[in-house]
C-alpha cells in the first residue's frame, strides 16, 4: 500500500516536473530528433566528420550573432540591421586589407570598433529617444546595405591573405602531436564534458542543501549522459578529420562568456528585469536607458565579428554578404525559447535554436531539397516552435 502511494507520488512529480520544463527538454530532444532524422535520410552523411566540421563553419556567424540578438530581444527590442552590418564590416575589411594594404590585426581591431560604433549609433536612438528599435534598425538595415554596395562599388573584393582566412578556416594544431585522431580535440572534449557534469553536480548539491532541487535524479543522469555523450561524440568525429576549427573555439568561448554574463552577473539580471518590466526596473534604480544602449553596442560588436568570420570563410567580400541573415538569427533566438515581449530567453536556447536551423539547412541541402521548400519548412518550424511556447504558457496559466 505504502509502496503504491510513493510510486504514484514520484510518477506524479516526474510528470509535473516534465511539464514545467517541457520547453528546455523539448528543445534538446528536438535537436537530437532532427539530427537522427537527417542522419538516417542522408544515409549517414550528416554526421560524417567533414560534414560536422562544415556545420560549425557554416553556422558560426549565425550563432555568434544569435548571442547578441538574444540579449537585445531579452531587453525587449529587436535588431533587423545585423545582416547588413555584417556585410558592411566584411566589405570594410576587404577594402582595408586588399585595396589599402592595412595589416590584418589592425583591420580586425578597426572593424570591431566600427561594429560597436554602428551599434551605439542605433542604440542611441532606441535608448535615449525611445524610437522603436524595429524602425531604427530597419533604417540601419537599408543604410548599411547601401554603404556596403558603395564601399565595394558593386564588385566582390578578394582574396584575403592567409592570416585573415585563419579566422574562419583555420584549425587548432594538435599540441600533443598525435595528428589523427587529433588528441587536442579529444582532450578538449573530455575536459569540457567533465566540466559540464561537474558543474551540474555542484549546482545540484547546492540546490539540495537549500532543499530546492526538483529535478528527479534519473532526469539529471539522462540529461548529462546525453549532453556529455553528444559532446564527446562530436569531438571524436572532429578529431578524425582536421581537429578543432578556430571558429568553434571562438564560438564556444563566446557562448560560455555570454551564458555567464546573462545568468550569473548583476548586469545580466538587470537586462532580464528591463525586458520583463521596464517601468518597475527603472523604479528599482536600474539605468534602463544605458543598459538598452549597451545591448545594441554589444550586438554591433558581435555582428562585426560575424562579418569578419563570414568574409574570411568565403575568402572574399561580396555585396550580397549577410543578405537576409538577420531573419535566420532572429528565428534561431525565437526557436530557442525567447519571448517577443522581452524578459525571457537563454543563451543556450539561442545556440541550440541556431543549431536546429543549421542542421535543417545542411540536411535538406544534402538531400537535394530545393531552396524553395527549404524556406517553407524553416518557416513552419519557427511557427511551430512559437506556437508550442504559447500553448505551454496558456496551459500553465
Amino acid at each position: 500500500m505504502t509502496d503504491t502511494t510513493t510510486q504514484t507520488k514520484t510518477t506524479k512529480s516526474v510528470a509535473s516536473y516534465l511539464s514545467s520544463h517541457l520547453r528546455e527538454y523539448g528543445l534538446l530532444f528536438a535537436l537530437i530528433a532532427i539530427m537522427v532524422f537527417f542522419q538516417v535520410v542522408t544515409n549517414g552523411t550528416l554526421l560524417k566528420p567533414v560534414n560536422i566540421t562544415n556545420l560549425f563553419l557554416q553556422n558560426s556567424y549565425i550563432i555568434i550573432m544569435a548571442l547578441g540578438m538574444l540579449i537585445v530581444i531579452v531587453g525587449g527590442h529587436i535588431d533587423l540591421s545585423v545582416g547588413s552590418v555584417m556585410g558592411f564590416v566584411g566589405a570594410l575589411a576587404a577594402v582595408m586589407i586588399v585595396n589599402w594594404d592595412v595589416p590584418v590585426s589592425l583591420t580586425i581591431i578597426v572593424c570591431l570598433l566600427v561594429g560597436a560604433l554602428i551599434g551605439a549609433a542605433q542604440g542611441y536612438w532606441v535608448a535615449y529617444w525611445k524610437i522603436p528599435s524595429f524602425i531604427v534598425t530597419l533604417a540601419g538595415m537599408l543604410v548599411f546595405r547601401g554603404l556596403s554596395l558603395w564601399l565595394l562599388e558593386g564588385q566582390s573584393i578578394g582574396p584575403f591573405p592567409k592570416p585573415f582566412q585563419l579566422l574562419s578556416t583555420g584549425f587548432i594544431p594538435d599540441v600533443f602531436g598525435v595528428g589523427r585522431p587529433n588528441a587536442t580535440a579529444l582532450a578538449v572534449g573530455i575536459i569540457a564534458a567533465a566540466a559540464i557534469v561537474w558543474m551540474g553536480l555542484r549546482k545540484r548539491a547546492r540546490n539540495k542543501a537549500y532543499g530546492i532541487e526538483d529535478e528527479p535524479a534519473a532526469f539529471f543522469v539522462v540529461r548529462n549522459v546525453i549532453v556529455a555523450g553528444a559532446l564527446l561524440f562530436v569531438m571524436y568525429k572532429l578529431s578524425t578529420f582536421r581537429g578543432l576549427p578556430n571558429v568553434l573555439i571562438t564560438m564556444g568561448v563566446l557562448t560560455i562568456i555570454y551564458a555567464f554574463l546573462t545568468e550569473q552577473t548583476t548586469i545580466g539580471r538587470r537586462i532580464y528585469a528591463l525586458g520583463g518590466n521596464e517601468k518597475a526596473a527603472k523604479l528599482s534604480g536600474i539605468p534602463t536607458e544605458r543598459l538598452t544602449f549597451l545591448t545594441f553596442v554589444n550586438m554591433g560588436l558581435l555582428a562585426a565579428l560575424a562579418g569578419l568570420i563570414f568574409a574570411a570563410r568565403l575568402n572574399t567580400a561580396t555585396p550580397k554578404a549577410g543578405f537576409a541573415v538577420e531573419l535566420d538569427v532572429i528565428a534561431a533566438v525565437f526557436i530557442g525559447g525567447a519571448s517577443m515581449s522581452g524578459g525571457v530567453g537563454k543563451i543556450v536556447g539561442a545556440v541550440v535554436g541556431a543549431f536546429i536551423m543549421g542542421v535543417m539547412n545542411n540536411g535538406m541541402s544534402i538531400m537535394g531539397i530545393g531552396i524553395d521548400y527549404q524556406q517553407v519548412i524553416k518557416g513552419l518550424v519557427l511557427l511551430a516552435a512559437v506556437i508550442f511556447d504559447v500553448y505551454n504558457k496558456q496551459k500553465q496559466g
Partner: protein
Amino acid sequence: MQTLLEMRNITKTFPGVKALDDVNLKVQEGEIHALVGENGAGKSTLMKVLSGVYPKGSYEGEIHYDGQLAGFAGIADSEKLGIIIIHQELALVPLLSIAENLFIGNECAKGGVVNWPETFRKTEGLLKKVGLAEAPATQVGKLGVGKQQLVEIAKALSKDVRLLILDEPTAALSESDSSALLDLLLELKSQGVTSIVISHKLNEIRRIADTITVIRDGASVSTLDATTQEITEDHIVRDMVGRDMSHRYPERDRKAGDMLLEVRDWNVWHPEHQRQVIRDINFHVRAGEVVGIAGLMGAGRTELAMSLFGRSYGRNITGNVALRGQPIDTSTVAAAIKNGLAYVTEDRKELGLILEESIQRNITLANLGDVSSKGVINEAEETNVSERYRQAMNIRTPSVFQKVVNLSGGNQQKVVLSKWLFAGPEVLILDEPTRGIDVGAKFEIYGIINELSAQGKGVIMISSEMPELLGMSDRIYVMNQGGFVGELSAEEASQERIMSLIVTE
C-alpha cells in the same frame, strides 16, 4: 415632476466583496441629481450597473426607466434610450478631430461612406450648444481638459441624451473651466436634460444640485432635497463618513524621534502640459513616525511621491530634500535609493514587480550589490536573503523560486515590501499599500509598518482609505490640487475634519 429613473434594491457582488448593498436611487425628470460618497463607496459601480457595463443579470434589483422596467445588456442598449455616461477618464481619441470624435461609432454615413459636409454641419451646431468656439476639424488632443469635457458633452447631445451621467466632471478642471461647465449643466437642465453628477466638491454640488443622494460603503444612506431646504456641507460630510471606527489597526508605541526627512519648497510641473502639479510643498518626517497623506484621487499624492523618488515624475522640479539635516541627492532613482529612500508603488503589477520572474529575483532587484561581488551574483546568498524575507514577512508560497504572477495580491505586496526593506531605506513612501488586498493581509501589512516604525524608520503613507490613514498615522497632511491644505495630529484628525479641509478649499 415625473420620475425618470428609479433604481430599486440594487445589490452587486464581486468575488469576495459586496460592492453595492440594497441601493436605492430615484431621479426626477429635469433635475440635477448629485451622487456623493468617499472613494470606493460604490458610486461608479452603481453608474456602471445603470449604463449596462455590468449587464442585466449580473446584479440584483430592478431598474425602472421612463415608467418601464429596464435592464441593459451593454452600453449600446442604454444609449439607445438616451442614457449617456461621461467617465472621469475621457473616452476621446486624441489624434482625431472634434467632428470625428463626436460621431465615432455613430457616423453620419450611407452604406459605410461618411458624409463629411453633414458631419461638419452637425458638429458646428453641437459645439454652439455647449459653447465651445473651436473649428470642427481641430484635433482633440490639442484641446485642454476643460474643452475636451465639453466635447464629451457635445458627443452626448449628438445621441439625443435624456439622462446625462457625469463622473467627477470637474476633477481635472481649473476654477473658471469648472464654473463654465456647471453653467452649461444648468443650461441643459433648462432644456429638459436630466443629469446625475458624481462629485467630491460640495460647494459645486450645493450650487447646482436639486437632490443629493449620499452613498457609503455600498449602501444609499440618505437622499436630501436641496430645493426645499438648505443643505449644509457639514451635513453631507457627516453622512458621507458617518461610520463607527472599530479597532482594525494593531497598537503601536507612538514616539517620534529625531528629525529624519525634510522636504522644502517642492514644486513640480506636469511632464507634458504647462500645468503645475505640485506647488510649494513643505513637510517633514521624524524617526519612527508614520505620516499619512490624505487627499482625493488626482490631488497629486502619487505625483509628489514619484517626483521625490529620483524625479520619476514631472519636470522643472525644484526644492530641497534633507535627511538628518544633510541635503541629499535624489536626482535619479539610484541616488534616491542610495540616500535612504524607498518607494512602494501604488500599482504593484505595472510598476512594482517583474511578474514573470521569481520571488527571489524580485526581492533582490533593487539591491543586487548586496548579494554579489564584483558584479557576479552569489545565488546561494540570494536564496538565503529571500528565504529570510519569506519567513519574516510570512509570504505564503511553496518556495522563493515561484513566479510572483502566481501569488495573491497580499503576498505580492509583501514581496514588494521585502524588496524595499532589503534595499535598506531610512524613509519608506508607501503609496496605497493595502489597495486590492484582503482584510487579513491588510492587518499583516499594518503590522509590518508598525515594525518599521519601531526600528526608527520614517514611513510616509499615502492612502485613499481614510479609516486606514486615521488608524495608522501619527500625523496627517491633507493634500488638494497639488498643495497641502492642512496638517492634523492623530488626536485632532477625523474623517470630518479631513473631508472639510478638502472640500472647503
